[in-house]
Protein backbone atom coordinates (compact mmCIF):
# COMPACT_ATOMS: atom_id res chain seq x y z
CA UNK A 1 0.00 0.00 0.00
CA UNK A 2 1.34 3.42 -0.86
CA UNK A 3 1.70 6.03 1.82
CA UNK A 4 -0.20 9.06 2.89
CA UNK A 5 2.34 11.34 1.27
CA UNK A 6 1.23 10.35 -2.21
CA UNK A 7 -2.14 11.81 -1.61
CA UNK A 8 -0.70 14.89 -0.03
CA UNK A 9 1.56 15.52 -3.01
CA UNK A 10 -1.35 15.15 -5.43
CA UNK A 11 -3.34 17.55 -3.25
CA UNK A 12 -0.49 20.04 -3.18
CA UNK A 13 -0.09 19.90 -6.93
CA UNK A 14 -3.80 20.43 -7.46
CA UNK A 15 -3.73 23.34 -5.07
CA UNK A 16 -0.81 25.00 -6.82
CA UNK A 17 -2.43 24.59 -10.21
CA UNK A 18 -5.56 26.16 -8.79
CA UNK A 19 -3.54 29.11 -7.54
CA UNK A 20 -1.87 29.51 -10.92
CA UNK A 21 -5.27 29.53 -12.61
CA UNK A 22 -6.55 32.17 -10.23
CA UNK A 23 -3.54 34.35 -10.91
CA UNK A 24 -3.24 34.00 -14.65
CA UNK A 25 -6.70 33.52 -16.11
CA UNK A 26 -8.62 36.64 -17.01
CA UNK A 27 -12.04 35.09 -17.40
CA UNK A 28 -13.92 35.11 -14.09
CA UNK A 29 -15.48 31.71 -14.74
CA UNK A 30 -12.13 30.07 -15.27
CA UNK A 31 -10.99 31.68 -12.02
CA UNK A 32 -13.96 30.03 -10.36
CA UNK A 33 -12.76 26.71 -11.77
CA UNK A 34 -9.44 27.38 -10.09
CA UNK A 35 -11.20 27.94 -6.80
CA UNK A 36 -13.00 24.62 -7.19
CA UNK A 37 -9.65 22.96 -7.78
CA UNK A 38 -8.30 24.42 -4.55
CA UNK A 39 -11.31 23.15 -2.62
CA UNK A 40 -10.84 19.71 -4.18
CA UNK A 41 -7.19 19.74 -3.18
CA UNK A 42 -8.18 20.38 0.41
CA UNK A 43 -10.73 17.58 0.20
CA UNK A 44 -8.13 15.11 -1.01
CA UNK A 45 -6.05 15.87 2.05
CA UNK A 46 -9.02 15.49 4.37
CA UNK A 47 -10.00 12.17 2.85
CA UNK A 48 -6.44 10.91 2.89
CA UNK A 49 -6.10 11.57 6.59
CA UNK A 50 -9.56 10.22 7.25
CA UNK A 51 -8.39 6.81 6.06
CA UNK A 52 -6.70 6.33 9.44
CA UNK A 53 -9.79 7.33 11.34
CA UNK A 54 -12.20 4.55 10.47
CA UNK A 55 -14.28 4.93 13.60
CA UNK A 56 -15.19 8.59 13.52
CA UNK A 57 -14.54 9.53 9.90
CA UNK A 58 -14.15 13.17 10.78
CA UNK A 59 -12.15 13.93 7.65
CA UNK A 60 -14.82 12.56 5.37
CA UNK A 61 -17.53 14.42 7.24
CA UNK A 62 -15.60 17.61 6.87
CA UNK A 63 -15.04 16.98 3.20
CA UNK A 64 -18.76 16.45 2.78
CA UNK A 65 -19.49 19.84 4.28
CA UNK A 66 -16.76 21.41 2.17
CA UNK A 67 -18.54 20.09 -0.91
CA UNK A 68 -21.81 21.57 0.32
CA UNK A 69 -20.21 24.95 0.89
CA UNK A 70 -18.45 24.75 -2.48
CA UNK A 71 -21.75 24.13 -4.23
CA UNK A 72 -23.34 27.12 -2.50
CA UNK A 73 -20.30 29.24 -3.29
CA UNK A 74 -20.35 28.27 -6.96
CA UNK A 75 -24.03 29.15 -7.26
CA UNK A 76 -23.67 32.56 -5.65
CA UNK A 77 -20.43 33.35 -7.43
CA UNK A 78 -21.91 32.54 -10.81
CA UNK A 79 -24.90 34.71 -10.02
CA UNK A 80 -22.52 37.55 -9.24
CA UNK A 81 -20.62 36.92 -12.45
CA UNK A 82 -23.87 37.13 -14.39
CA UNK A 83 -24.65 40.47 -12.76
CA UNK A 84 -21.19 41.71 -13.56
CA UNK A 85 -21.68 40.68 -17.14
CA UNK A 86 -25.01 42.50 -17.34
CA UNK A 87 -23.43 45.65 -15.99
CA UNK A 88 -20.02 45.76 -17.67
CA UNK A 89 -20.71 43.58 -20.69
CA UNK A 90 -17.56 41.62 -19.88
CA UNK A 91 -16.36 39.05 -17.39
CA UNK A 92 -12.68 39.77 -17.78
CA UNK A 93 -11.40 40.61 -14.37
CA UNK A 94 -8.77 43.10 -15.56
CA UNK A 95 -11.46 45.20 -17.22
CA UNK A 96 -13.28 45.72 -13.94
CA UNK A 97 -11.24 48.70 -12.81
CA UNK A 98 -13.70 51.48 -12.11
CA UNK A 99 -11.91 52.42 -8.93
CA UNK A 100 -8.69 53.03 -10.85
CA UNK A 101 -7.77 56.60 -11.61
CA UNK A 102 -8.24 57.12 -15.31
Amino acid sequence: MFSLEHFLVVGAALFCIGVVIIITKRNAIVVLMGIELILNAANINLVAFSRYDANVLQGQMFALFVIVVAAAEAAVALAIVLRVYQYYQTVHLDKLDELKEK
Partner: protein
Amino acid sequence: MSVTEIIFYAFAALTIAGALGIVLTKNILYAAFSLLLTFLGVAALYVVAGADLLAVVQIMIYVGGVLVLMIFGVMLTSKTTDKYLPSPSHNRIAGALAGLALFGLFFTAILKASFSTLPWITQAEQHSRTVSESTIAGIGINLMTDFVLPFEIAGILLMVALIGAAYIAGRK
Protein backbone atom coordinates in the same frame (compact mmCIF):
# COMPACT_ATOMS: atom_id res chain seq x y z
CA MET B 1 3.48 -2.36 -8.22
CA SER B 2 0.16 -3.57 -7.06
CA VAL B 3 -3.07 -2.94 -8.89
CA THR B 4 -4.14 -0.28 -6.46
CA GLU B 5 -0.90 1.53 -6.96
CA ILE B 6 -1.30 1.48 -10.68
CA ILE B 7 -4.81 2.77 -10.33
CA PHE B 8 -3.66 5.49 -7.98
CA TYR B 9 -0.91 6.70 -10.24
CA ALA B 10 -3.16 6.57 -13.25
CA PHE B 11 -5.86 8.64 -11.69
CA ALA B 12 -3.43 11.01 -10.01
CA ALA B 13 -1.94 11.61 -13.44
CA LEU B 14 -5.42 12.13 -14.87
CA THR B 15 -6.25 14.65 -12.18
CA ILE B 16 -3.07 16.64 -12.59
CA ALA B 17 -3.29 16.46 -16.36
CA GLY B 18 -6.84 17.76 -16.28
CA ALA B 19 -5.85 20.59 -14.02
CA LEU B 20 -2.90 21.48 -16.20
CA GLY B 21 -5.24 21.39 -19.15
CA ILE B 22 -7.25 24.23 -17.66
CA VAL B 23 -4.08 26.25 -17.27
CA LEU B 24 -2.76 25.61 -20.72
CA THR B 25 -5.79 25.62 -22.97
CA LYS B 26 -6.89 28.77 -24.74
CA ASN B 27 -10.49 27.68 -25.13
CA ILE B 28 -12.86 27.98 -22.21
CA LEU B 29 -14.94 24.99 -23.21
CA TYR B 30 -11.81 22.85 -23.29
CA ALA B 31 -11.04 24.17 -19.85
CA ALA B 32 -14.47 23.07 -18.68
CA PHE B 33 -13.92 19.57 -20.06
CA SER B 34 -10.48 19.41 -18.50
CA LEU B 35 -12.17 20.30 -15.22
CA LEU B 36 -14.47 17.33 -15.79
CA LEU B 37 -11.43 15.06 -16.08
CA THR B 38 -10.01 16.49 -12.89
CA PHE B 39 -13.23 15.99 -10.99
CA LEU B 40 -13.47 12.40 -12.17
CA GLY B 41 -9.86 11.81 -11.23
CA VAL B 42 -10.43 13.21 -7.77
CA ALA B 43 -13.49 11.01 -7.38
CA ALA B 44 -11.37 8.01 -8.29
CA LEU B 45 -8.75 9.08 -5.75
CA TYR B 46 -11.49 9.18 -3.15
CA VAL B 47 -12.36 5.60 -3.99
CA VAL B 48 -8.73 4.61 -3.63
CA ALA B 49 -8.67 6.33 -0.26
CA GLY B 50 -11.72 4.36 0.81
CA ALA B 51 -14.21 7.21 0.66
CA ASP B 52 -16.80 5.65 -1.59
CA LEU B 53 -19.69 7.88 -0.62
CA LEU B 54 -17.62 10.99 -1.17
CA ALA B 55 -16.65 9.76 -4.61
CA VAL B 56 -20.29 9.44 -5.55
CA VAL B 57 -21.07 12.81 -4.04
CA GLN B 58 -18.14 14.32 -5.92
CA ILE B 59 -19.41 13.06 -9.23
CA MET B 60 -23.00 14.04 -8.51
CA ILE B 61 -22.35 17.53 -7.20
CA TYR B 62 -19.27 18.62 -9.06
CA VAL B 63 -19.78 16.95 -12.38
CA GLY B 64 -23.56 17.01 -12.31
CA GLY B 65 -24.01 20.37 -10.69
CA VAL B 66 -21.10 22.73 -10.49
CA LEU B 67 -19.63 21.91 -13.87
CA VAL B 68 -22.96 22.24 -15.66
CA LEU B 69 -23.42 25.55 -13.88
CA MET B 70 -20.00 26.66 -15.09
CA ILE B 71 -20.77 25.74 -18.67
CA PHE B 72 -24.02 27.64 -18.45
CA GLY B 73 -22.10 30.58 -17.03
CA VAL B 74 -19.66 30.42 -19.95
CA MET B 75 -22.47 30.38 -22.44
CA LEU B 76 -24.40 33.21 -20.83
CA THR B 77 -21.39 35.49 -20.62
CA SER B 78 -19.89 35.15 -24.07
CA LYS B 79 -20.66 37.51 -26.90
CA THR B 80 -19.10 35.59 -29.74
CA THR B 81 -21.17 33.28 -31.84
CA ASP B 82 -18.13 31.26 -32.94
CA LYS B 83 -17.25 27.84 -31.75
CA TYR B 84 -14.12 29.25 -30.24
CA LEU B 85 -14.42 30.91 -26.82
CA PRO B 86 -11.03 32.33 -25.86
CA SER B 87 -9.65 31.99 -22.35
CA PRO B 88 -7.01 34.72 -22.27
CA SER B 89 -4.40 34.88 -19.56
CA HIS B 90 -1.86 37.29 -18.17
CA ASN B 91 0.86 37.35 -15.53
CA ARG B 92 1.98 34.09 -17.04
CA ILE B 93 5.58 33.95 -15.98
CA ALA B 94 5.02 35.35 -12.53
CA GLY B 95 2.07 33.03 -12.00
CA ALA B 96 4.02 29.99 -13.06
CA LEU B 97 6.90 31.01 -10.82
CA ALA B 98 4.58 31.49 -7.88
CA GLY B 99 2.90 28.15 -8.49
CA LEU B 100 6.20 26.31 -8.76
CA ALA B 101 7.57 27.99 -5.67
CA LEU B 102 4.45 27.14 -3.74
CA PHE B 103 4.60 23.57 -4.88
CA GLY B 104 8.27 23.35 -3.95
CA LEU B 105 7.45 24.65 -0.54
CA PHE B 106 4.64 22.16 -0.07
CA PHE B 107 6.71 19.30 -1.38
CA THR B 108 9.59 19.94 0.98
CA ALA B 109 7.14 20.46 3.81
CA ILE B 110 5.43 17.13 3.14
CA LEU B 111 8.75 15.31 2.89
CA LYS B 112 10.15 16.87 6.00
CA ALA B 113 7.06 16.55 8.14
CA SER B 114 6.73 12.80 7.50
CA PHE B 115 3.07 12.57 8.33
CA SER B 116 3.09 8.78 8.00
CA THR B 117 5.03 8.45 11.21
CA LEU B 118 2.55 10.44 13.29
CA PRO B 119 1.70 8.32 16.31
CA TRP B 120 -2.02 8.11 15.67
CA ILE B 121 -1.48 7.11 12.08
CA THR B 122 1.04 4.41 12.83
CA GLN B 123 -1.18 3.11 15.59
CA ALA B 124 -4.12 2.97 13.25
CA GLU B 125 -2.03 1.06 10.76
CA GLN B 126 -0.72 -1.39 13.31
CA HIS B 127 -4.13 -2.20 14.65
CA SER B 128 -5.44 -2.17 11.08
CA ARG B 129 -8.00 0.43 11.90
CA THR B 130 -7.75 1.98 8.51
CA VAL B 131 -10.84 2.33 6.38
CA SER B 132 -11.38 -0.99 4.73
CA GLU B 133 -15.07 -1.18 3.99
CA SER B 134 -17.87 1.10 2.85
CA THR B 135 -18.20 4.26 4.93
CA ILE B 136 -21.74 5.04 3.88
CA ALA B 137 -23.29 3.58 7.01
CA GLY B 138 -20.81 5.36 9.26
CA ILE B 139 -21.36 8.71 7.57
CA GLY B 140 -25.09 8.25 7.67
CA ILE B 141 -25.02 7.53 11.39
CA ASN B 142 -22.68 10.47 11.96
CA LEU B 143 -24.96 12.82 10.04
CA MET B 144 -27.94 11.85 12.11
CA THR B 145 -26.15 11.92 15.47
CA ASP B 146 -23.04 13.96 16.13
CA PHE B 147 -23.29 16.11 13.03
CA VAL B 148 -27.01 16.69 12.95
CA LEU B 149 -26.68 20.39 13.76
CA PRO B 150 -24.08 21.12 11.05
CA PHE B 151 -26.21 19.01 8.73
CA GLU B 152 -29.25 21.20 9.34
CA ILE B 153 -27.18 24.36 9.09
CA ALA B 154 -25.79 23.13 5.78
CA GLY B 155 -29.37 22.73 4.59
CA ILE B 156 -30.19 26.29 5.60
CA LEU B 157 -26.99 27.53 3.95
CA LEU B 158 -27.91 25.86 0.70
CA MET B 159 -31.37 27.36 0.78
CA VAL B 160 -30.00 30.81 1.50
CA ALA B 161 -27.45 30.43 -1.29
CA LEU B 162 -30.21 29.33 -3.66
CA ILE B 163 -32.43 32.29 -2.84
CA GLY B 164 -29.47 34.65 -2.87
CA ALA B 165 -28.20 33.42 -6.22
CA ALA B 166 -31.66 33.64 -7.77
CA TYR B 167 -32.11 37.13 -6.37
CA ILE B 168 -28.73 38.45 -7.45
CA ALA B 169 -28.86 36.99 -10.92
CA GLY B 170 -32.51 37.78 -11.52
CA ARG B 171 -32.61 41.39 -10.27
CA LYS B 172 -33.25 43.89 -13.01
